[in-house]
């Protein structure tokens, strides 16, 4: 087995036992990138020299007899909406094509303290708006399992990089499913933590009440290890939750006897592909055999989550993206007359079609005369959706369903129909509206394409979903499959 396809915890043991060096490992990952990324196109920017320097420092520390932290020397890919000091951070948008952050996101500071190696910045749907990576202003990313298909989105570059061996770990961001859905499409593990668990400082804002950074990894143990590094209270983010952070690996016991798991009927009904449903049914049988008590339940307002989300997220986005005016950073139109004209030309030339569509939708939902009918209505429905989950968690420890209603679709299949594209997020976006933690784990294949199983926990119930996901993974081989 090549180095680039091992997990971080396996590689850590090899590093500690001096079977490999961090420089060797980093070179192996870059060799893989050189071989494949012409076809996959997971990266917007590569940081090869910096990576080799970081790796050399890890090797020097090891030679000096220092104890290596759990993820020291492990190559990580970073979604290009996470600020990296001195390294271009574009959000895959013309608007930020030349933006070099003067500071690091908090998660980057934590990764550096943990001595991980940054490989590069990954492609995404522009400003994280999209479900297929086709909305990147630069180029689309391909699914490593079938290069004619999309890797999902918006963290499609990060998911594709991990799936193709172009990085061992990756960070993504999830506003309505943007970590979990590409994890499902690419056959890797992806987690959206509870809102407030991971600092948003330095994450370019899309919808501030929904955005969370989270891990994309090869297995659940790596997911717990990466979450350990990036989570925890941050005074730089006023929505960061003060809570006692556990060691998430302590939940990986393999024992889920007596765990109560609910299957919302809405997640297994109409609109879910039958091949996807079959895989999820098999996964339910596996969990039952492990001693979990699985029963049907209901989240009655599920059908209202999609419209509520697509009013709230664009409303917040229209406000957040008002900052792109060509004054302080990023793109500025050359055609400008007076200052207002400069704002308008800059925004019209700098934003792509989906970003403009969402700014228009959000502005409309917030505008005088429509605020109550649309935005405020959506906030009230958000309360109902949250109450659905609260009621379900009176009886269950976690909920389960497919991560996405379909497997990876072909490029171009849905780009012209926004409503069809938005439907792809139908299983994931309620979770963001309610602020809950959820994980997608590889559950099997439908044809030659991976299917993800989604486990949703109580607020700050990351331990429960990691425990169940890990137990499931131990009895299956899906996470050990790699694309050809």
């Amino acid at each position, binding site marked *: 087995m090549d180095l680039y396809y091992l997990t971080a915890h396996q590689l850590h043991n090899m590093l500690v036992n001096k079977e490999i060096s961090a420089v060797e490992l980093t070179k192996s990952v870059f060799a893989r990138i050189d071989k494949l990324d012409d076809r996959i196109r997971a990266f917007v920017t590569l940081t090869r020299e910096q990576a080799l320097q970081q790796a050399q420092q890890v090797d020097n520390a090891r030679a000096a007899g220092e104890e290596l932290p759990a993820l020291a020397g492990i190559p990580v890919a970073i979604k290009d909406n996470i600020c990296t000091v001195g390294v271009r951070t574009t959000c895959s948008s013309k608007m930020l094509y030349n933006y070099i952050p003067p500071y690091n996101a908090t998660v980057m500071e934590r990764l550096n303290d943990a001595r991980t190696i940054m490989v590069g910045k990954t492609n995404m749907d522009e400003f994280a708006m999209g479900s297929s990576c086709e909305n990147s202003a630069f180029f689309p990313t391909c699914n490593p399992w079938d290069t004619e298909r999309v890797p999902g989105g918006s963290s499609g570059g990060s998911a594709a990089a991990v799936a193709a061996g172009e990085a061992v770990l990756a960070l993504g961001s999830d506003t309505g499913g943007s970590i979990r859905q590409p994890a499902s499409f690419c056959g890797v593990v992806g987690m959206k933590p509870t809102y407030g668990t991971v600092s948003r400082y330095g994450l370019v804002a899309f919808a501030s009440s929904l955005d969370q950074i989270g891990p994309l990894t090869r297995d659940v143990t790596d997911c717990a290890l990466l979450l350990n590094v990036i989570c925890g209270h941050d005074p730089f983010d*006023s929505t960061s939750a003060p809570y006692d952070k556990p060691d998430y690996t302590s939940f990986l016991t393999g024992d889920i006897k007596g765990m109560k798991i609910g299957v919302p009927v809405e997640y297994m009904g109409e609109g879910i592909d039958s091949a996807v449903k079959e895989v999820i049914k098999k996964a339910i049988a596996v969990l039952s055999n492990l001693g979990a008590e699985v029963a049907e339940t209901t989240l009655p307002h599920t059908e209202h989550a999609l419209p509520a989300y697509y009013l709230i997220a664009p409303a917040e986005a*229209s406000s957040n993206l008002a900052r792109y005016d060509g*004054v302080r*950073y990023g*793109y500025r139109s050359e055609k400008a007359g007076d*200052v207002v004209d400069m704002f308008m030309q800059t925004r019209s030339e700098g*934003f792509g079609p989906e970003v403009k569509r969402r700014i228009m939708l959000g502005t409309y939902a917030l505008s005088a005369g429509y605020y109550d009918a649309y935005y405020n209505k959506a906030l009230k429905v958000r309360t109902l959706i949250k109450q659905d989950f609260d009621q379900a968690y009176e009886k269950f420890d976690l909920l389960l369903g497919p991560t996405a209603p379909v497997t990876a679709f072909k490029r171009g299949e849905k780009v012209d129909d926004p*409503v069809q594209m938005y439907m792809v997020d139908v299983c994931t976006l309620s979770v963001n509206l309610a602020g809950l933690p959820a994980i997608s784990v590889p559950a099997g294949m439908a044809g030659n394409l991976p299917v993800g199983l989604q486990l949703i926990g109580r607020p700050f119930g990351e331990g429960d979903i990691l425990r169940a996901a890990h137990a499931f993974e131990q009895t299956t081989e899906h996470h050990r499959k790699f694309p050809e």
Partner: protein
Amino acid sequence: MLSPKEVEHVALLARLKLTDEEKETYRRQLSDILDNFRKLQDLDTENIPPTAHVLPLQNVFREDRVGGHMAVEKVLANAPQRQDNFFKVPKIV
């Protein structure tokens, strides 16, 4: 169905200059999207409070103490245009 005038008004609020083709596309697509969202109106939410935020956090203040701040050169490094220690923009008045 949104009217062309409504689309132009929203575009102005959002500070977007749209081509005629874009105006027509967004008019059609936004109308489609809003039609699909009509089912929200069927729900009785009279007595339901809105949720803008899921965490029960309020008024997160920091201590009133001078902290570190970024050097002016760093702040201006990404400016499309600058003059001395200022961001430069086209004529305002």
